[in-house]
């Protein structure tokens, strides 16, 4: 396991949080829509991180925020693997685009979870073992490794809960999840508490769509260090 070397000056990270806060007003980030969400429900708007990650400067700021969040976990616990979701449902490509960068910066191996697969051991893309012991490798799976799931956005969080189940079926244990944004009015806080998954979030979006700087002040919560699941469920 790599030694965690990355560190940020607190002021600089706070500054990045403040800069990234304004990204929500950029075109194509919060989309006004009566779209169908992945889960089949509908709402007036949705968050799309993909356009932000196209821009190297914005991407670097968002990466710093994710790293700050991971650093927060590493101060109190260990993480063996960081899991990214290969979203098969046609929504945003999401945080998987940051998988290599996050892995390089933290020194923690990354894995890809593919919920669209039907065969359990195919859902986690890692080389289980070399032949002729491949079957043993599949049976051992992730060998109780402690996993952090990194995602871009949670509306209800069901997708992350399903991924946690996929990882659990492969003998891993999801202890933490980090999401860049979360819908406070729709998120299933209690399900995460029940599963023992601690959720951290950078920005909590509320029911109202953000259209102006005044909306950012009134309807956007920033969580630089606090774990939202503890905040909501304690």
């Amino acid at each position, binding site marked *: 396991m790599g030694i965690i070397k990355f560190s940020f000056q607190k002021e600089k990270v706070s500054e990045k949080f403040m800069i990234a806060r304004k990204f929500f007003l950029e075109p*194509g980030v919060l989309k006004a829509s009566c779209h169908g969400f992945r889960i089949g429900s509908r709402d007036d708007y949705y968050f799309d991180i993909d356009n932000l990650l196209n821009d190297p400067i914005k991407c670097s700021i968002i990466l710093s925020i994710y790293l700050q969040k991971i650093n927060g976990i590493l101060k109190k616990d260990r993480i063996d693997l960081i899991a990214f979701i290969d979203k098969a*449902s046609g929504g945003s490509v999401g945080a998987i685009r940051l998988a290599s960068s996050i892995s390089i910066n933290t020194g923690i191996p990354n894995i890809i979870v593919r919920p669209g697969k039907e065969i359990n051991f195919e859902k986690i893309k890692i080389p289980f073992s070399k032949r002729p012991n491949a079957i043993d490798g599949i049976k051992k799976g992730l060998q109780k490794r402690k996993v952090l799931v990194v995602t871009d956005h949670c509306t209800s969080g069901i997708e992350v809960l399903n991924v946690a189940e996929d990882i659990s079926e492969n003998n891993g244990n999801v202890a933490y999840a980090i999401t860049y944004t979360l819908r406070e009015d729709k998120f299933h806080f209690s399900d995460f508490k029940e599963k023992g998954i601690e959720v951290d979030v950078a920005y909590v979006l509320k029911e109202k769509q953000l259209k102006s700087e005044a909306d950012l002040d009134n309807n956007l919560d920033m969580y630089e260090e606090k774990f939202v699941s503890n905040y909501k469920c304690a």
Partner: protein
Amino acid sequence: MTDKREEFSKIAKKMAAGDVEGLFSLRSLVVDLRLSKNAAKLDDPMHFLAIYLSKKIISDVWENLATDASFDFDLEKLQDFAKQFGEILINLLIVKDVKQNEYRLGETVKWLFKYFSEISADPIIVFKKKGENNGHYKI
């Protein structure tokens, strides 16, 4: 899903009545469904076929028209699709007439993909004038 046959049939009837909201309910019902788990539990192959087709076809609809597409569902346009697909599901779940379904299924799926092709060729058909709705506009 084995214990949701009644709910599934209700949604199919809603769709067959031309209620496009049934498509949203169908998506909710099947989006995270594991076909492999259901294959072991379901005795009725017609029931399984209905689930399989729902999951696959609704995934195509969502992947192309919902989630992060840059325009909204055209509800009126999809009403006919919902009706056709709802009737196919009823045939599988209740009437259990496969033969009657074969042609209609081909016709319905062909319509869907032809619609995708039409959107590609002429995006104006899904992008309404500014002010008409806030569907695809970025703030």
